[in-house]
């Protein structure tokens, strides 16, 4: 069969066919991603994928958690899916990353057959999709469900459509458990979830010791119209994910989605308001913080709606950087040399208050870096303990890897 061409894409994607000046249908190739960590941050910022917890919603989230735990069917957790799909980016080409553990999308697969530059037949399948980064193994589970369909011309409900999720661009070590799932177009809206599992083989990673592999998830499809004419295989990049074997987490294997800004939200009202005030001051009025050198400071880690501010990077507890940070902070807090001149932290009651530092001791940007870009402030010891607890949780929750494998930012207040 010759003399025709076909296309398949997702409605609204950059690769969606367009009509040129002569009235001909033009099919372009989708732009490809590189899959780097820096690209993921840029993509996340563009898509506004930043999780901002509202403490007032805690009760609702806890009830969701119980409901999700009660689900046994192999389908994405309904409450997370509902919450994710109502986010503004869920109907965008990249979908929405709710947080590093969950991604979703609500779009339309579109395909057609073109003869002499004109479309002879088309179909549309509306769908919702979700993916979960497995918290215990190097697997990512992707779910797809058709919601509705339409056909025109040479396509009907009896035409066939095959779809699959696969790793794209960065395919080393990544395999899917199955390929195309093919159904009549009219059967894609039957309400059943179809799922694929992506495996990430740590043996294929040359990075040590976390054995990180970065991947790009893509949706690929091919359809055949009622005259037996297949479309070309069309696909698009959707979202990035990363799998690692970092043994410094309670679960040493995990996959997470990377198109989301890793951000620690230190909100007021959680029992550590003075710590929040301290970090705000360090980020916004650094020159006014202790030690006060009388000259400007540039304290990193503030998320300012894009990645323009330098991030924080994590270091190992009790490692070389951590020890330097701890020692320097102790010197500054205790007014030991060289912190003996004017502009030092005033004396405080050490039985009821503790010396808080920002950036944290667990960062490469801490006091021990030696550039003076840090802040110390006394805060109530119970508040410091709670804030430390929150940091401990965050680093695990967002699975922040050491050093340049991961960046994160801090929102204070």
């Amino acid at each position, binding site marked *: 069969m010759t003399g025709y061409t076909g296309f398949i894409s997702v409605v609204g994607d950059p690769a969606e066919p367009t009509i040129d000046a002569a009235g001909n249908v033009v099919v372009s190739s989708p732009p490809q991603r590189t899959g780097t960590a820096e690209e993921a941050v840029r993509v996340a910022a563009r898509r506004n994928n930043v*999780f901002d917890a509202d403490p007032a919603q805690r009760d609702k989230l806890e009830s969701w958690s119980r409901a999700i735990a009660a689900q046994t069917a192999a389908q994405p957790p309904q*409450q997370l899916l509902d919450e994710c799909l109502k986010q503004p980016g869920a109907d965008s080409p990249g979908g929405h990353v709710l947080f590093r553990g969950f991604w979703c999308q609500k779009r339309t697969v579109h395909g057609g057959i073109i003869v002499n530059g004109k479309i002879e037949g088309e179909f549309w399948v509306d769908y919702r999709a979700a993916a979960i980064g497995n918290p215990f193994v190097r697997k990512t589970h992707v779910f797809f469900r058709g919601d509705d369909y339409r056909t025109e011309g040479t396509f009907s409900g009896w035409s066939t459509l095959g779809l699959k999720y696969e790793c794209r661009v960065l395919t080393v070590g990544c395999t899917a458990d199955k390929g195309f799932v093919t159904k009549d177009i009219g059967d894609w809206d039957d309400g059943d979830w179809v799922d694929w599992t992506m495996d990430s083989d740590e043996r294929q990673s040359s990075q040590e010791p976390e054995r990180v592999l970065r991947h790009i998830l893509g949706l690929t499809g091919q359809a055949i119209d009622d005259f037996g004419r297949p479309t070309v295989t069309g696909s698009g990049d959707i979202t990035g994910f990363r799998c690692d074997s970092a043994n*410094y987490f309670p679960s040493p294997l995990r996959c997470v989605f990377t198109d989301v800004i890793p951000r620690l939200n230190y909100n007021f009202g959680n029992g550590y308001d003075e710590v929040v005030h301290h970090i705000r001051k360090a980020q916004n009025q650094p020159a006014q913080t202790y030690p006060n050198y009388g000259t400007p400071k540039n304290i990193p880690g503030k998320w300012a709606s894009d990645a323009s501010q330098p991030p924080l990077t994590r270091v190992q507890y009790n490692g070389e950087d951590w020890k330097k940070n701890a020692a320097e902070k102790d010197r500054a807090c205790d007014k030991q040399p060289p912190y003996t001149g004017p502009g030092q932290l005033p004396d405080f009651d050490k039985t009821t208050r*503790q010396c808080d530092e920002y950036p944290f001791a667990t960062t490469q940007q801490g006091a021990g870096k030696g550039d003076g870009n840090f802040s110390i402030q006394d805060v109530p010891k119970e508040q410091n303990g709670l804030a*430390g607890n929150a940091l401990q949780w965050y680093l695990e929750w967002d699975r922040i890897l050491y050093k340049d494998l991961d960046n994160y930012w801090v929102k204070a207040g």
Partner: protein
Amino acid sequence: MPVMPTRVIESHVGIDYRHFQVGSRGLHEPPRFPFDEMPSILTVVDNAVAVHSAVHVHHAAAVRMESWEIPPTTGGPDGADRDERQVVFDDDADEIVVYAQAPMATAPETGMLHLNAPGEYRVRAYRWGSNDAIAAYAADPDRQPDGIERFLIQFWRIGDITDHTTRHPGRGAPAEHQWDIAIRDWAQRQGFGPNPPAIG
């Protein structure tokens, strides 16, 4: 014949945020201590204990943990600070196993101390040497005063968990963490799950 603890472990443990943590092996996520009281030494939540230092700089404390069958008949030296609380250990295993680590440490800094069956426990703590550690730092700020502040932590079981057991669940997890907990629950329902932690 003197009555002795049934098991003992000793190690240096890092002090960060001016405390270290004793956690049960059944704890799968960081404990969320309330910290809204001003404890002399101990803050408890179910399956974990925070042990507070009296030294304001980073250091490693010398920690001895003991498991007893009866209320301990020995203790810390005269003049040591002392505190005692009740804590619930309700691990699924037949035997409770605890360890100690600094809050930001990613692995236990001690060996595993085997206690008794799950149930209600008393925990008693002695702390001494704190002033010596402060003085050591003042004399040489370039050297972390490790091993000078000392702790003795003693555990003994007092009974089963009942409807009348006083629990200390800790502070609720932040909102966003509930979602991750939900994902973990989901994965376990699908047949994935953590391997049992190795016993040291």
